[in-house]
């Protein structure tokens, strides 16, 4: 009986997703059309990719508050380059380099110098947003149509942002479940000191997860640019919270050592976007949006805490 209860709780995010789909499907005939479902996937791509990177960090009991700022700086640099006439591939490469540089800075202070991740990434959040504002001079940059064309391009009838999201999810899932590095991440998240005594180079593991998170943020910036075709001073703002919410909704623990990308983070990111999509499709009262989204997040976290209690009956 207990095992069944545990099993039900494990699938709680999936059940919630199905309930949300059924509810909005009943409200609007267009909601379940394949075109709208692809639409949801595309709109969830940017947050989803950041959330994949964030899952790696959360699994080590860390946090990366700088992802939104990385997106902003990367987009600002790419925007400047594009407006200066450089070709799209150069701009895209520059975005990745920005992601690596900022996350290498995070990794140095967190893994090597043992400064708490919260402090380091909070600092890089402010430094990054300041740097982005300086680069853009607080002006909106409307980019060449090549960015929008990239965002709306399709491969095998599926939009490129959805492909990138899918690839990030599958790759992350394989790394976490089929490599020794993946197992080391979970070990560090469970108990870093024990992992170190067991011979795991915890510093290296920690450094790598922040580099992965920064890379994901840069790719997410690319996806967002492809959808907006513009960089505003608010680009990527509060993306860190959306990414953490998506990962936690998918069952990743804020305390490390437990969670998964497939289906967890994928479902978390898509669930939030599905709710927002459904509310617009049904012309809901705008004041209901934050309330309904918060209730769903609360219910998901509640199920998560129940699952914790069932799986650890003797913990305090």
């Amino acid at each position, binding site marked *: 009986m207990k095992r069944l209860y545990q099993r039900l709780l494990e699938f709680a995010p999936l059940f919630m997703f199905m309930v949300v789909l059924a509810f909005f499907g009943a409200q609007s005939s267009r909601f379940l059309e394949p*075109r709208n479902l692809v639409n949801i996937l595309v*709109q969830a791509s940017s947050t989803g990719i950041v959330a994949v990177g964030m899952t790696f960090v959360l699994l080590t009991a860390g946090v990366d508050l700088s992802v939104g700022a990385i997106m902003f700086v990367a987009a600002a640099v790419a925007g400047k380059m594009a407006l200066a006439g450089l070709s799209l591939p150069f701009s895209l490469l520059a975005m990745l380099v920005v992601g690596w540089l900022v996350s290498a800075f995070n990794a140095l202070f967190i893994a090597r110098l043992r400064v708490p991740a919260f402090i380091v990434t909070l*600092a890089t959040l402010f430094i990054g947003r300041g740097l982005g504002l300086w680069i853009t001079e*607080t002006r*909106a940059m409307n980019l060449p149509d090549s960015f929008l064309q990239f965002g709306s391009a399709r491969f095998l009838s599926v939009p490129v942002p959805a492909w990138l999201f899918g690839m990030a999810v599958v790759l992350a899932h394989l790394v976490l479940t089929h490599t020794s590095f993946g197992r080391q991440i979970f070990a560090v998240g469970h108990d870093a000191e024990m992992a170190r005594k067991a011979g795991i180079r915890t510093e290296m593991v920690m450094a790598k997860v922040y580099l992965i998170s920064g890379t994901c943020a840069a790719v997410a910036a690319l996806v967002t640019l492809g*959808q*907006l*075709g513009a960089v505003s001073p608010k680009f990527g703002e509060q993306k860190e919270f959306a990414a953490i919410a998506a990962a936690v909704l998918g069952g990743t623990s804020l305390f490390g050592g437990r969670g998964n990308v497939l289906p967890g983070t994928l479902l978390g990111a898509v669930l939030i976007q599905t709710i927002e999509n459904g509310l617009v499709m049904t012309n809901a009262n705008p*004041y209901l949006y934050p309330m309904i989204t918060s209730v769903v997040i609360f219910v998901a976290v509640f199920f998560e805490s129940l699952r914790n209690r069932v799986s650890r009956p003797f913990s305090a």
Partner: protein
Amino acid sequence: MKTIRHAILASFSILCLVGCSKPDSTGNAPNGARKITVGVAFETLQTEYWVAGFEAIKTELSKLDIAMVEAVADSDASRQLQQVKGFITRGVDGIILVPKDAKTCIPMIRAANEAQIPIVLFNRPADKTDAISTAIVADNAKLTQETVAYMVDQARKIGSKHKAVVVLGDLGDINAIGRRDGFEAAIKGNENIIEVVSRVPSEWNQEKAQAGVANALQANPDIDFIFTSSDFLFPSITSALKAVGRYKKIGEKGHVILGGFDGDATAYQMLVDGYLDATGVQDVYFEAKSAVQALIDMREGKKLPQLIIDPGFVIHQGNLKESSPRMWGANIKKKG
């Protein structure tokens, strides 16, 4: 190794401290007389409008040879309170404040009142209070109503019933609420021409606006009337329209009637290119001049009304040439 680690940590700490402080400037007149100093505290400088407002205030103060100290709160009301208290401690002669919202500014106004320092609110008024201040504000509701009324007229000329989307701002922002009310007031009585099929809350976030408009277009592919509560969301709207092949110039078949609020550089370019029907322009130059004048009047003991209204104006294809010199976004665009 330990020394290197300590050195890096020390540098990082210094970097953080430097990053948290704000530059300021003050000084004395060349003849040694004490120069008037005004503290200018902005909630944020994260949109073109706020930057244009900040620059306009700076220009007005410098015209009158008034020194300025500045602070930006990065959307943190408690930080802004400390910044205002800092201004008071250093003895500024007046404060111009862009508060985060209508309520959190009241303790700041009270603190200035207690120190007998005049305080003027720029573009965002305070809630009802007995604390004394003057606010220079655009009449968001009226200006939006005029803009949307122009759009409705365009729809009426076309003839068929139009399906409309309104992109709302942050529902906690009094200016956004004013614009929403202005939109609803303009639509009221014109339901035979306009049917509002979607109200998209953007929280002033471009991604949410883009997703919201794309979703609305998915639910109602025949939408042909969109109003945004701020021009800075236009890139999101045009992106969503382009994705479904609906971004057309005025007069072209399938054109979506577009309107906005603010008067930024993107809106100006869209007007010039013939995609945008109208936008309500906040007269940032009027607001800056009025804010500085109000401070001077308050210092001289004159009693001012609680609100000084910026009437703003609607710019559209019919008056673009004569009105664009007053449009702050046009001036930004022309300066490059």
